[in-house]
């Protein structure tokens, strides 16, 4: 059970989708849960069917089930509330920064489940998490965090050097915070150049971009 949280537009959904697919490819039963209650129309919904076809149970609203969710949607899908009780792996995609992270408390068992790990996704190209002190201050604001993900990238301009720079800064921040770095996530092409571990020794998770197919 993993919950992905972090700064608005830090890459939470992309990392969560890829993590779910990674686990599904191992033959595991995976539930991917969309917990963005601020902008629920625009997150996983457009690729829900595609992800289902790839063997993942996607827990997200269908447009026809709701109304008025264009903005400031605030209804927690009932099934999502109980997501942590579902059989199989559970990947939670929790949108919208520090305020969004509070959504986790709405889930049954979130406070007590021993298997749940809350992972903060960090991209050093985003100035609010652009430096060591910024990352430390930001992660402390998030509440419960059990590990960091280095998702440092510059969109299409991402280089191996940039990812490695991110790995160094995020790992230094993790040491200060006394947290592990769960992974460095990087586009599959660049991941081949980096190998199974980044320069600091964190595992590399190759990812494919799915979110450009969604609303944003």
């Amino acid at each position, binding site marked *: 059970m993993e919950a992905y949280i972090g700064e*608005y*537009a830090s890459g939470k959904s992309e990392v969560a989708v890829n993590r779910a697919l990674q686990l599904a490819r191992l033959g595991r039963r995976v539930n991917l849960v969309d917990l963005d209650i601020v902008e629920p129309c*625009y997150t996983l919904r457009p690729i829900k069917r595609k992800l289902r076809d790839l063997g993942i149970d996607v827990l997200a609203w269908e447009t026809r089930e709701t109304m008025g969710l*264009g*903005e*400031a949607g605030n209804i927690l899908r009932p099934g999502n509330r109980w997501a942590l009780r579902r059989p199989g792996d559970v990947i939670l995609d929790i949108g919208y920064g520090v305020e969004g992270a509070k959504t986790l408390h709405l889930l049954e068992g979130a406070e007590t489940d021993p298997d749940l790990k809350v992972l903060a996704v960090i*991209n050093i*190209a*985003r*100035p*609010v998490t*652009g430096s060591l002190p910024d990352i430390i201050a930001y992660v402390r604001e998030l509440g419960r965090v059990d590990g960091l993900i280095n998702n440092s*990238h*510059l*969109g*299409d*301009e991402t280089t191996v050097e940039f990812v490695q720079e991110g790995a160094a800064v995020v790992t230094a921040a993790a040491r200060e915070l006394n947290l592990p770095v769960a992974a460095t996530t990087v586009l599959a092409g660049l991941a081949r150049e980096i190998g199974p571990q980044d320069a600091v020794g964190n595992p590399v998770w190759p990812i494919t971009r799915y979110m450009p197919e969604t*609303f*944003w």
Partner: protein
Amino acid sequence: MADKPIEGEKRVFMTGNEVVAWAALAAKAEIMYGYPITPQNEIMHYWTRMAPKFGREFLQTEDELSAGFTTAGGVLAGRKAFTATAGPGNTLMQEPMSMAEAMRLPVVVVVQQRGGPSTATVIYSQQEVTMTTMGGNGEGLRVVYSTATHQELFDYTIKAFNTAWKYRFPTFVLGDGYQAKMRESLTIYDPEARGVTLLPAEAYLGKPGTPGVDRPPAQYRNTYNVEEELYEVLQGYFKDYEKMAPEIAEFDAFDTEDADLVVISHGVVSRAAKGAVKELRAAGYKVGYFRPITLRPLPVKELRALGGRTKQFLVAESANGQLARLLKEAAYGCPVEMLPMYKPGVGITTEEVVARVKEIAG
């Protein structure tokens, strides 16, 4: 407290709303007044997160009428003040913006366009062109920059403060929800390190010297006893605006010299138009690309020259001819034929523009 929000230059990846907040910090904006509305909320969110670190301020007002008037008040008090809004908020702000026009107040307003009235869509359209350029019960004495990329959102938000304070007309940065929410890389920078002079704000009232003796009296009127007074004041404003217009009008164009058809678009749609024109040129079509960056004032001289030598304009916009109306006025009397590609409230893709041009070419 940190000294400068941005030291030197930095390549970053962020959403458009966040870009605007950083640009306002970089431009030395002192205070933002605002009221929440999608899709501009994160401008406020990021401003309120960062402002205290750099000694800047924020006031949340009870609505957009108030946000517009307090922005005007901040400017009168000599502060670099701005606000940001969208759709129905932009509608409410037309009253304070009419006041800002009438009093020549350099307010800066960032608009992230959305579709329809307050109960309609919340993300995207280009349906605020008429309102942003000509809204209010005035004469459209304002400046409107229409941006297409995150880099431009940064550059033109900074520029908007300088234009406003140099010419003393309300200045708008016109984006849209796609630009607001989209993630893209750009270079953020300290404008002064690049040699850009940031014009200082100055208080309208309480200047040194005796009014009428050492300096003209500070008489910022928005109340007139007779119609002729308003008429007389406006004549001076029109003269100033006409003088300013060619100095600040901006556009982007390529492949127009020998083009039979020029695709004209603005804002985010111009990204699709640019891709389409490049693709069509490579396929041998005689097409060109023209994009006004200032929608008010338009680059009239260039548009008229283009309208005099090109057979057809294809106007592509996510509105039902709001840009086209402005173009028709600017190019009145030119022999060019103006063809519509209007998709009010929805986006326009490169493929759609390519298909439309091929259809026209037959």
